[in-house]
């Protein structure tokens, strides 16, 4: 297990390899938010949406700004290149998995869009408690942010 090796795999966009390393890191150090943030993205890219949602919810419950304040350039966040695919065919998205994935990924760039996709996921399955809770946390952030802005 090596966080450094996990970091390199993540930089090299080898998500499944990065996931294996970072899972060990988070298991040994559950407070490692940097590793958790990367792990969330890895889970979405290997199709493990349940694990992504669970880790995502854990992290935003503790520190939502840690995801929202991601600097795409200086943090080498891959989300823009991952969500850009969606812009062209947003109307064709139909599956719960897709809505959850984009809901999670968009929080790294745009809380409003993240909320929109999570709400669409909830329309398909209204019983997703983690999604409901995540939307509440995002709403709270947006309200707080708007209050400060006003």
């Amino acid at each position, binding site marked *: 297990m*090596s966080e450094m*090796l996990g*970091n390199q795999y993540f930089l*090299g966009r080898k998500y499944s390899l990065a996931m294996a390393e970072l899972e060990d890191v988070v298991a040994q150090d559950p407070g490692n938010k940097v590793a958790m943030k990367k792990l969330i993205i890895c889970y979405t890219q290997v199709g493990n949406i349940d694990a992504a949602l669970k880790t995502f919810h854990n992290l935003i419950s503790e520190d939502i700004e840690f995801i929202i304040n991601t600097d795409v350039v200086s943090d080498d966040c891959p989300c823009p290149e991952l969500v850009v695919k969606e812009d062209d065919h947003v109307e064709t998205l139909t599956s719960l998995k897709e809505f959850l994935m984009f809901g999670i990924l968009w929080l790294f760039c745009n809380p409003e869009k993240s909320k929109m996709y999570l709400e669409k996921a909830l329309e398909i399955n209204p019983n997703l408690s983690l999604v409901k809770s995540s939307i509440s946390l995002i709403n709270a952030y947006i309200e707080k942010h708007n209050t400060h802005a006003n």
Partner: protein
Amino acid sequence: MVPFFLLKHSECKDKMSISDKFKDHILDSIAEGVFTVDKNFRINFFNKAAEKITGYDRDEALGKFCKHIFRSDNCYTDCPIALVLKSQKNIYDFDSKVRNAHDCPMQIKLNAAVLYNEDQEPTGGIVSFRDMTELEKFRESFEKSTQFHGILGQSKIMQEIFELISEISDSDAPVLISGESGTGKELIANAIQQTSSRHDKPFIKINCSVFPQNLLASELFGHVKGAFTDAIKDRVGRFEIADGGTIFLDEVAEMPLQMQIQLLRVIQEGTFERVGESVTKKVDVRVIAATNINIQKALDDGKFREDLFFRLSVIPIEMPPLRVRKNDIPPLVKHFLSKYSMLYKKDITEIEAKAIDRLMNYDWPGNVRELENVIEYAFVRTSKGSILESTKLPSNFKESSIEYKYNLRAHSSDDISERTHLLKTLEKHHWNKRKVATELKIGRTTLWRRMKKHGLDVE
């Protein structure tokens, strides 16, 4: 590779600032580019040579991810530091292509190591690198300019060897390359492998003379744990690694007789057992062997098995010594001058006529390797001008040429004059006999006769 002071930071915390300045000063003074990264692969040190090679200022590079500075495909495939992390072994002379600040591709060779904290957790990495772009260009132009896979040889005898290698490219038959030391047997083996249908398969080389019998068996066929005292774990042998490809057995005639029997079996049946194991393994390996000893004498003395010899020498190739292909000397010298001009950053492109005369009249017992050493020696000693002078040739080499001087004295002054003129004309036309005969207004037969008379009958 990794400076000790980088690895032992924690042991001198109270002297950290002094240590850091000392470290920076040393790393800035070396010609190799050096950078270090933290565990997130952000650059946290970038020496002056790295600035010069990449074109990035230190301030531009610091804090950036190394992949954004170097933009190598290896960042996404085989990051050298990741390889070290996985293997726990430092990497040396790793070839990589990167891009410089002007977005131009560069060929570099790098060494990489991982930095650890007191708990032996990886905390960063260090990479040193050097620009190989110019050398790579030279290598490419050399390969294009030579007739055959990086081997220089315009003599008829070498051309015939090149032709033979092309002819056997579809064959998997064993090849036995014989020839004196320094004649380029390994280059020929490389060319055979590169032109064969197995060119993209493993190519394993082993020098049979450097291992004692028990270790050679282990090297070639592998061993199982407990097979002998030092066999602490299973080991795969070279034949298994080469499966599907080619193995080059250098100095094959130095192999102990017992091993020769085992080798014969692999060649005949493709089967062998690992040392300490009774399970028979089967491989498909093409064998290229080489030897620099007198095979006939080795056969007569019973040191080399006749059956193995016949099995190996399905395609025999005899590398000629340099003394019988002396017209290859001028282009070889030219090549070595270009090579060392590049390596030593000197512009020495010519060689004095007297020097080439000496080179042409030496017997070269060490063959092309010796010629290269002589040129490098003289090259290093030449500090002024663009011409390599005969006075810069090694003293022992000059002594060896005394015989040549005596030979000259034994001839009349007219002979010497004729010989010198002939040699200069041959040089001028790069040993093209047709052009030389035309300039001297003599027939090619007469030219050949004169060359023979003066010991210049190189074919």
